[in-house]
């Protein structure tokens, strides 16, 4: 059983709630490990088509656990446990959705950016304030933030500690949508439910192709898309999807 998170299933959606409210869901190593383990388990569950990660209305996750960081030596950190957990989350094949309200600072902002979609409450706040502790973002913050909002705003956040409100985050393309705080989890679950109802194989191939677009040249990216497209084209679900469309009925996906 987990101590720092709660895991629920809602239909075809797996929900993981960070559950250290007193610490504003600070991501200590134990929490990150539990999160990675829970997501991996949902990844293997054939009943689950998408996952949502959330905190509570007040805090998605207010960064790493600073008290733990203070006690952590360089040698311990170099064992790579934290980095490994982030890698587990990055390599998830099913769609991951972040439902963010309140603080998404430091590791919280990075965790949100690992996800494929971000639904933000109108009280969400995003920041990478690690510089105040004499360190820098270590969970992908400098790389993902820069790809998302551009160099200059990323610099302002990473060097200057600038905090983005939910609406600013929307304007800069850091979140998909902003919804009332009262509904942020519901809206994220709704979105996840919709996505979880799509053809599973195509969903994975699509996620893979979009993610790889960040790294590849257009030439190579188009090549990868072509391969993924051909794989999808050879699936039973392609036959079912196109037939259902022609017959004007809902498709029943097999995941093959």
């Amino acid at each position: 059983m987990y101590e720092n998170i709660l895991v629920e299933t809602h239909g075809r959606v797996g929900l993981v709630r960070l559950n250290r409210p007193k610490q504003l869901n600070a991501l200590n190593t134990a929490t990150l490990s539990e999160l990675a383990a829970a997501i991996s388990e949902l990844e293997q569950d054939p009943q689950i088509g998408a996952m949502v990660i959330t905190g509570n209305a007040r805090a998605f996750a207010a960064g790493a656990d600073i008290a733990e960081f203070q006690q952590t030596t360089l040698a311990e950190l170099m064992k790579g446990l934290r980095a490994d957990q982030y890698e587990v989350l990055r390599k998830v094949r099913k769609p991951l959705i972040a439902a963010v309200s309140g603080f998404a600072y430091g590791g919280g902002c990075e965790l949100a950016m690992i996800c494929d979609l971000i639904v933000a409450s109108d009280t969400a706040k995003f920041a990478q304030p690690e510089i105040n502790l004499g360190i820098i973002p270590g969970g992908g913050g400098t790389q993902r933030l820069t790809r998302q909002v551009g160099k200059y705003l990323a610099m302002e956040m990473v060097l200057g500690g600038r905090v983005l409100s939910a609406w600013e985050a929307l304007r800069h393309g850091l979140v998909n949508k902003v919804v009332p705080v009262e509904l942020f989890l519901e809206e994220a679950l709704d979105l996840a439910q919709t996505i979880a109802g799509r053809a599973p194989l195509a969903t994975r191939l699509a996620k893979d192709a979009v993610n790889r677009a960040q790294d590849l040249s257009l030439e190579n990216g188009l090549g990868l898309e072509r391969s993924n497209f051909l794989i999808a084209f050879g699936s039973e679900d392609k036959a079912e999807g196109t037939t259902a469309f022609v017959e004007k009925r809902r498709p029943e996906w097999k995941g093959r």
Partner: protein
Amino acid sequence: MSVLLSELQEGILTLTMNRPEAINAFTTEMLRELSKAFGKEAAQPEVRVVVLRGAGRGFCSGQDLREFEGKTLSYKSHLRNYQAAVENIVNLEKPVIAAIHGAAAGAGMSLALACDLRIAAADAVFATGFSKIGLIPDAGMNYHLPRIVGHAKAFELEALSRRIKAEEALAMGLVNQVVSAESFDSAVAQLAAELAQGPTKTFGLIKRALRRSASATLEEMLEYEALLQEVAGRTEDHKEGVQAFYEKRPPRYGGK
């Protein structure tokens, strides 16, 4: 004696700026008290409406220039005190009434404009003031004034800073209501009581919607409105309102 008096009675939090010897001119201390009152005290669930008013002869004569005498001043850093007060008024999801008698000048006028409703006594006089000493209006006046009276009128008031009496203020929509000096207290109490018995959560959502509307497209607003309505539709007060309608009786709102 405190520079900001506060009294809570039957859901009505009355905040009285209390430096009558200077027509309640703002000092750093008063601004901090105001921020705190709107940020913490007013946020308590038993508060259903806030009334902001002045003690003695007028509402507020703006920044106390004597505070700066003989000091080198950075306006930029001093204005942070105003930013906090204005943001806390605007972000408070409850109705805030400015009850104005006598002078509302300079930043005193700015704060009145940040409130949701303005009720004025017949002896109320407005003046933007700032340009008379070679300054631009601050404390949010450049945001709120053109949204209330339009660009041309806002420029006129800000640049020429003539004295606007209550009746003229009413004609241009700067105040919601003008009442005689004798009936001022009772009219304020009546308006506050009416709002205090209203659906407070809903009033807060209206405030949030109007705030968003200042920077949204119609399509964005329609979408956001639908979500806020979903929230309003789940309030106890909505159920009570509908019930009362069917039972042909006045609703009894609990504010939730």
